[in-house]
């Protein structure tokens, strides 16, 4: 895999144009621009209902400078499957040239962990040739911050409020990327827009592989996570530095840590306590209050166990 030339990358025309209605500091358009910058071949983009869809296509405007479709909330993967099947059939009857057309899906956490999971699982089982990008802002942000299967333990949302009895979301995040690995998808990875070179390399690698590929991208949400909108990339870095969100890839049974997570693997002293990630976000404010030390410990224990499990897999792969 060649290295990425930032100057060349910057010269490419953007495929997500300015003027969209994403909130200031939103991690999503940054991630989308990086993903599309990694693609040089023809592409069709499918987007599930969510922030990305409504913020980019308010008629009569569109921000998409690539062929783009939105169908419904829970069916982005099936829509991609249909497009891929159409290309196969049209090629068979000579109505379309033989060149590669990538099909890339962007689905939020609601459209992926929850309502779109069946469609995603089915499309991966059938082996369609597409890349699924999960942009995970860890709640239903488009409808105003409701908890999803991707919301972390203890987080405040409007449907997992911090009450007298229940302190935020009682459950941990669904291990979505592991579940996709368990589908035997040929390529699965995690990424953040702050680790931009890592993200671009992963997209390029994914698109060089036939079959269903999945990249889980953490996209912080200043509105929902309650932090200053200038801090989105810093929040991404803290998520990785604390091993709350490790960067890895899985290909043909081999687990690899990448970028900063690889550095932490090599030098465990670099791993920061998860409190560092939590304390910059108001959605976790209550966890840091006196008397809630047990909740912080539970959070830290969970992060540690997931990280050590991942480290074991990486060691077993070598």
């Amino acid at each position: 895999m060649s290295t990425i030339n930032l100057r060349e990358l910057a010269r490419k025309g953007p495929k997500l144009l300015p003027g969209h209605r994403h909130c200031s500091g939103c991690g999503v358009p940054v991630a989308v621009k990086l993903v599309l910058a990694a693609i040089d071949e023809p592409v069709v983009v499918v987007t599930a209902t969510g922030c990305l869809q409504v913020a980019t296509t308010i008629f009569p405007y569109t921000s998409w400078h690539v062929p783009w479709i939105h169908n419904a909330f829970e069916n982005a993967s099936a829509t991609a499957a249909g497009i891929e099947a159409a290309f196969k059939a049209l090629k068979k009857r000579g109505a379309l040239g033989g060149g590669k057309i990538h099909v890339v899906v962007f689905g939020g956490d609601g459209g992926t962990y929850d309502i779109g999971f069946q469609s995603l699982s089915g499309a991966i089982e059938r082996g369609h040739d597409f890349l699924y990008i999960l942009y995970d802002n860890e709640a239903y942000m488009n409808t105003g911050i409701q908890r999803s299967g991707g919301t972390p333990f203890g987080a405040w949302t409007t449907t997992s409020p911090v009450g007298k009895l229940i302190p935020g979301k009682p459950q941990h995040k669904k291990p979505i990327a592991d579940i996709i690995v368990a589908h035997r998808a040929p390529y699965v990875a995690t990424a953040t827009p702050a680790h931009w070179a890592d993200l671009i390399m992963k997209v390029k690698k994914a698109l060089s592989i036939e079959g269903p590929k999945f990249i889980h991208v953490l996209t912080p949400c200043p509105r929902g996570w309650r932090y200053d909108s200038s801090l989105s990339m810093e929040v991404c870095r803290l998520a990785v530095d604390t091993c709350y969100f490790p960067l890895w890839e899985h290909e043909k049974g081999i687990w690899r840590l990448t970028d900063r997570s690889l550095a932490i693997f090599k030098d465990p002293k670099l791993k920061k306590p998860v409190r560092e990630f939590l304390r910059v976000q108001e959605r976790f404010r209550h966890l840091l209050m006196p008397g809630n030390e047990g909740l912080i410990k539970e959070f830290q224990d969970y992060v540690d166990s997931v990280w050590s499990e991942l480290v074991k897999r990486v060691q077993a792969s070598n």
Partner: protein
Amino acid sequence: MASYLTRALNGDEAVAFAVKQCNVDVVSAYPITPQTIIVERISEYVANGEVHTEYVNVESEHSALSVCIGASAAGARVFTATSSQGLALMWELLYIASGLRLPIVMAVVNRALSAPINIHCDHGDSIGARDAGWIQFYVENPQEAYDTIIQAFKIAEDHSVLLPVMVNLDGFFVSHTLEPVKVLPDEVVSNYVGFRSNVKVYVPYLGKEVHAVLDGITPISLGIIALSDYYYEFKMKVIKAMESAKEVIKKVNDEFKELSGRSYGDGLITQYGVEDADVVLVAMGSAAGTIRYVARELRRKGLKVGALKLRCFRPFPTDELIKTLRGVKAVGIMDRALTSGGYGGPLFMEFRSLFYDLDEGPEMINYIYGIGGRDLRPSDVVNIYHELLDVAKGREVSKVKYIGVRM
């Protein structure tokens, strides 16, 4: 007129055979009784390399129609089939298919909706989708199922229409009844329907006309958000397209007559004995054959009765129905679907509304029948005709009647 072969096919097989001949690029479906034979046969055609079709075996009907929407947006000719609960699961996507103006063809093998679960015929499933922006045909037998599937691609893909088409056939009564079906040679059908031709649209921000399909290159956006300032205009276009569809349906009916020697009235309605009838019964689907049979028997005895088959429910043939039925004294509307808490069945309401403005419109009586596959016997229809003849002479009866049910 082309030569033909006669094959023994049930309704489902007749649908699958038509699909095989129609150069379909993508089929995606999920098994459900009594539709399953359709997808089994198509799977066999694909497995044997008899078609170039990509068959996507999805994990639900929701995904089946989602695949069809994606494939159709990419310029493919697509087909799917379902019944009852499967159609209910597709619900939100029905509106998306028509809103995106995708010419998808779907066979719906009509089956009652749960609960209680039931696998037999009524029209509650597709009638419930009345307002989803799909053209709806109801066919009477396997022959008409075969013919209508072929016509459906021509109608859906006509550039003045571009709407999805639902071809409804009665579960078991049509889907599983083996009948001789005259099929056209493959090349005749293939030449008639051709391949899907994609419409060109002018895109202001590109400053040119482009094919409105996802081709990997042309930056078009499909499935955008349109709020109170534009949504209504998008939906008005579906209303207009539905209006244009009437003429296209008639045209395709005529073309198909040239091709096969078969036609179905004007394409929208067919009639038997209506011209001099005092009373007429109206039905959709397999019951249209039953009422015509009984009408013929009664006419032999000198009774002035007629039978009208509503072949096309959406678009509703308003002018054609008024023209045909305005001089009739009493009309019986046969509804194979329920609407609880309303005044009669869905067809009845539509007919009554249509004839309201006539100074001397026919008396209208609603006969709700056949729910959950309950038989409609010829003797039931004989009684209905006699009652209508009494109504024509001035007898008062209740307007809404449930036939063949234990009260």
